[in-house]
């Protein structure tokens, strides 16, 4: 009798158990609550800083993202780039290969494209006015070359850690993390080599002939970027869901031992998946140079390699969901940027808001995966 009472007292107030599976709509509801809660906290923060009323804050944010046609296209472009990198990291993450090196893989991809543009740059014909420039290669040759070079560079950057992980089990998250900074210095090195005056800023390459620039599509500068990323999204969805390789990726991610037992060559899958991952990062780098900036710099990826990791994870590695999560993140960033400009605040406010939203969504996963049970009274007998 007394031992039973003792047992009751030592039972903790809260008891956590793992959920088996949750009805899908409950998961959606929990996530929606988290996003709403995050938005409330964010607006409270902005109200505190700007002393605006919260509704004005939101209208300002929507205005900042959708206000004009130009703003809308920039929003789409930013979503496309973030989505592209998120797609790139997804197969690796599904395999539980923590590729934190997307930033570097995008950078070397961008560098390769810029190198192609630079070494086949336009030349001035004659000395007489008006100045006439001519590109040594036509775009039909140069652009595919840039694309291939970027993908190759991205693949090299991703596959080095993959090989070491596959053979010796080298910690991939730390390895890929370090590769980012090697890539950054490499870009800085080449800019110094290419720009002789030491200004460390690479200007727009081929401004006159637009050689190596992706042409406009539907009258939009970013048309091609958006189209390519759209196609990639569909392709990645099919690859992960319906291909044999996609299946192997999820088996390796769930359990390496199971994978080995059913005859999957784990090493091969790791290396192959990182080739896919690196190639898409390379494409992102190519789009950033050829379709967006027409130049390269150390921070051309602008931390998107890291944001993409969060975007992919928030979407549970589902390419369709990633469209939504990357929209959410980009919308917050652009909206916060607009508020910062209007009220003369520092642009970093968008990083703070992004952080808050991600904290909330990360936190809410707990309530999807686990169940919190309150202490219940034991039945007598």
């Amino acid at each position, binding site marked *: 009798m007394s031992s039973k009472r003792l047992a009751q007292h030592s039972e903790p107030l809260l008891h956590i158990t793992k959920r088996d599976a949750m009805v899908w709509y409950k998961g959606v509801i929990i996530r929606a609550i988290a996003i709403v809660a995050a938005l409330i906290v964010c607006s409270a923060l902005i109200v505190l800083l700007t002393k605006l009323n919260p509704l004005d804050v939101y209208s300002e944010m929507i205005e900042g993202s959708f206000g004009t046609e130009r703003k809308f296209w920039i929003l789409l472009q930013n979503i496309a780039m973030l989505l592209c990198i998120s797609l790139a990291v997804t197969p690796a993450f599904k395999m539980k290969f*923590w590729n934190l090196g997307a930033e570097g893989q995008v950078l070397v991809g961008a560098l390769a494209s810029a190198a192609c543009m630079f070494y086949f740059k336009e030349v001035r014909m004659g000395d007489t006015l008006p100045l006439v420039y001519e590109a040594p290669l036509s775009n039909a040759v140069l652009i595919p070359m840039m694309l291939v070079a970027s993908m190759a560079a991205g693949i090299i950057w991703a596959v080095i850690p993959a090989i070491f992980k596959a053979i010796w089990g080298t910690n991939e998250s730390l390895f890929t993390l370090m590769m980012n900074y090697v890539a950054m210095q490499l870009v800085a*090195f080449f800019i110094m080599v290419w720009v002789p005056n030491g200004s460390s800023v690479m200007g727009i390459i081929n401004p006159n002939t637009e050689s190596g620039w992706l042409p406009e599509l539907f009258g939009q500068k970013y048309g091609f970027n958006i189209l390519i990323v759209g196609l990639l999204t569909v392709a990645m969805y099919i690859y992960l869901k319906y291909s044999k390789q996609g299946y192997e990726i999820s088996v390796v991610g769930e359990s390496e031992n199971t994978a080995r037992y059913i005859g999957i060559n784990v090493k091969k899958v790791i290396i192959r998946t990182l080739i896919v991952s690196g190639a898409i990062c390379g494409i992102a780098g190519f789009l950033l140079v050829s379709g967006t900036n027409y130049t390269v710099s150390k921070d051309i990826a602008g931390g998107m390699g890291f944001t993409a990791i969060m975007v992919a994870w928030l979407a549970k590695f589902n390419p369709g969901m990633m469209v939504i999560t990357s929209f959410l993140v980009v919308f917050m960033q652009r909206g916060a940027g607009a508020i910062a400009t209007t009220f003369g605040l520092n642009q970093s406010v968008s990083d703070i808001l992004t952080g808050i939203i991600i904290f909330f969504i990360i936190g809410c996963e707990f309530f999807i995966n686990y169940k919190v049970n309150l202490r219940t009274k034991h039945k007598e007998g």
Partner: protein
Amino acid sequence: MLNTIFAFINAAIIQGTPLLFGATGEIITEKSGNLNLGIPGIMYVGGISGIIGGYIYEHYTEDPNTALCILIPLLSCMLGSLIMTLIYSFLTITLRANQNVTGLALTTFGIGIGNFFGGSLLKFFNESGSISLMDCGAAFKMSLPFADDLGLFGKTFLSFGFLVYLAVIIALVASFILNKTRVGLNLRAVGENPATADSAGINVTKYKYFATCIGGMIAGFGGLYFVMDYTGGAWTNNGFGDRGWLAIAIVIFAIWKPKMSILASYLFGGLYILCVYIPGLSASNKELINMLPYVVTILVLIIISIRKKRENQPPQSLGLSYFREER
């Protein structure tokens, strides 16, 4: 020549100190099995919290007192970095969220906080210009009065503010606690295999929380050193740069040993500014020299994974959340 070498050593120690704080903090954190990639963000917050504390104090007093000029930034730095690590700990330990994602989000958040307040602090007080805390900076820079009389040795090794020595002391104490005490043994057990530690009666959650929070606060001092001593009480946005990631690199380079991290930090600090001391270096080659710390870290990572010596491996459960009912 000798003067140049000593000047280089002196500069390497100065550059290495923020890295040492960060690395020691991260080692303690990682020993508990938490891979805190939020350290770069925490260091930014540590710096800006110190600045905010110091600024408010200097703003409201006519005649700042030296002791308070040190104490207030120190405490506000600890508070700021504690809040940051509590966010991380709550999400990863209590809510068992993914450590990589949480850490990266924390870094984005922390750098955002640092740059936001760094850029807007004066505006909140209706001032303009840039932040510059003369009195706090001077207080933190204060060195032994007789250092300069001791010749080259004194100038090289004794001319620093107190935080430089504190970094070394913390690293030594951390090394002692980790390797020679029961608390350290328990902590290492938690990082290696939390399930075993749990069944041996060690409170895994408590150890993880304490290690992560203490580690984060130590790392925060790195940011404080940078803004108070190195820049003398001034803040420039993104001025701290990628030193936080370098600190994480040092953890690997020092193979998770705080004593090694002292040497590793000064070495990396030296590599960070090596390009200034090599005469006749072209601008492009300088960038290649700056690549060295990362390349060296990668090499170390590869070597330890190939050699597979038990004592040189990362803590076994590094990066994994622990859930008692899942074994």
